[in-house]
């Protein structure tokens, strides 16, 4: 599969089982940065807020 073809395949959103090239995308991890901490913490914080609001507002939640 050529690079261009592979790019198209990737963006088609379609499930295919075509061959994959071995490419090292699993190594050389960057240092953890403060931006990532913010991203993770904010996501969890939003989840907690959404959970509390959801439990109060949604009539089928265990609180009702």
């Amino acid at each position: 599969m050529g690079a261009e073809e592979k790019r198209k395949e990737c963006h088609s959103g379609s499930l295919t089982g075509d061959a994959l090239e071995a490419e090292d995308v699993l190594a050389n991890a960057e240092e953890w940065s403060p931006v990532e901490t913010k991203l993770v913490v904010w996501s969890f914080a939003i989840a907690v807020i959404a959970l509390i609001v959801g439990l109060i507002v949604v009539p089928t939640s265990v609180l009702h």
Partner: protein
Amino acid sequence: MTNQERKWYTGMLTQEDWWAVWLGLGFFLLGLLSIGGIDVLGWITYPKKWVFSLPEGAVAKKIVTVNHAFYPLGAKYSQTAKDFYKGLGPIGGILMTYLVFTVATSIGAYFMRWDLKKYITGWTIIFFLTYLTWFVGHHAFFSASVVDLKKSHFPEMFTLSLGGGASFILALIVGLVIGNFFKPFAQYLSTAAKPEWFIKTAIVFLGVKVGYLPIKAAATSQKLGHAVAGLTFDLFVAGAAATIVAYMIFWPGVYLISRKIFKLPRATAAVLGSGISICGVSAAVATGGAVRAKPVVSIMVSALVVVWAVIELVILPGFFTHVWPGTGDPLVAGSAMGMSVKTDGADAAAGELLDEFMRAKISAETDGKVVWPEGIITTSAVMTKVWIDMFIGLWAFVLAMIWVYKIDKRPGERVPFSEVWHRFPKFVIGYFVAWFVYLAIFFGPGHAGAADGMAVLKAAKVGAINVEKGMRKLFFMLTFMSLGIITDFAKLKEAQFGKMVWVYFVALFCFIIPVAVLIAYLFHHGMMIPTLGAAG
């Protein structure tokens, strides 16, 4: 094509997503004609549970003889053309079903610029293999429950009691055998083996089902119709809340696992986070684009998503039915399924399987006194999935902004808000349109199931049943078969997958599934399905 060149209507004729809408809504509209007394879809041919010959004293009620194993739905439900559809018979019905869907899907294939010759050949093989599997899977040994045997006055005998789920499992097995042991053949069929397209179309048909559920229930009693309409809305609201909470926990959790435990690079961890957390393939592709991951990352994650989704599909419905939460909390199970299984195809299919298993189990447990309407558990699984799908676009947009402005700090680059629309799963539009139109018919001219609206509801039922029962199940079957065909387990063995397989395994079984079950419990615990049986 760059973002700037894309219009809001780009892809309407070239994307699977849109073609699921066109196919789904096309047949939905044809189904609506039944309200005016025109039944044009009664040819769709559906299986019955069968045996080669009836034992002495048995009656052909729930279980019939082999020559009646299929029937065009119009032969039973049509109000205006029953004789015509009866005349078609099972073979004529199957051939007509083949003809109509060959033409309809080939038009889509043509516009999506697939190799039409290969598509039609592959489609033909997949279609008839699917019907053959459907036939075998409905043999009483696989599908009949104790209640079916009793109603048909059969003597006590051992059956697997899998209901319609037997056919799904069989289709998956046949597909997997082709995909893993006849690889050149699977490769040949791959042009027509399109589980995402088939399932998205089936989900639009499911919209008809969800809208039709109150109509069906109203045939038993007006009160039941109201209860089902209310329940579907409750699922809609609970599904939304559960999805938002789950996703905001899933993504950072998987990202942390990938980065801190498995030491993966940022872009790979982000794609994995979305792939494992949201709706697998589309999310992996969308996030891959947003964070500028190498294309191979999205492809690798997509392949993993498919393989793991199939494993989940095999394990979870049985686990949720027989271990926990069981028939005591069926909608917790359905909702958790929607949040755990990471492709639309596998999720809806697993939901359908769960629906079959749960209904068979509750019927057996109560000796047929409790009969749950078909499709509500599937709906609970699909509802959370649909919300997750809608979330993809927004999340890809947020990630793109974070990566552009905070992580990669690309000067001068701008992320247009239109990106949200381009990432939006369009088949969801078809699902909601179909649902709301049938709901409007129920509450409008159907007078919410009151006596003066029943004539309209009965006429609407004729068209709806062809779509929600015949076509939906057929497209689920096609999905299972295709999913099997394109799934190659050997990929898991490939060296470069090793680390990702473990990330996926740890994240899925130690994090995603337990959290999904917990959140589903918090929002769905105690929601009960109204019964159509004597107990209700």
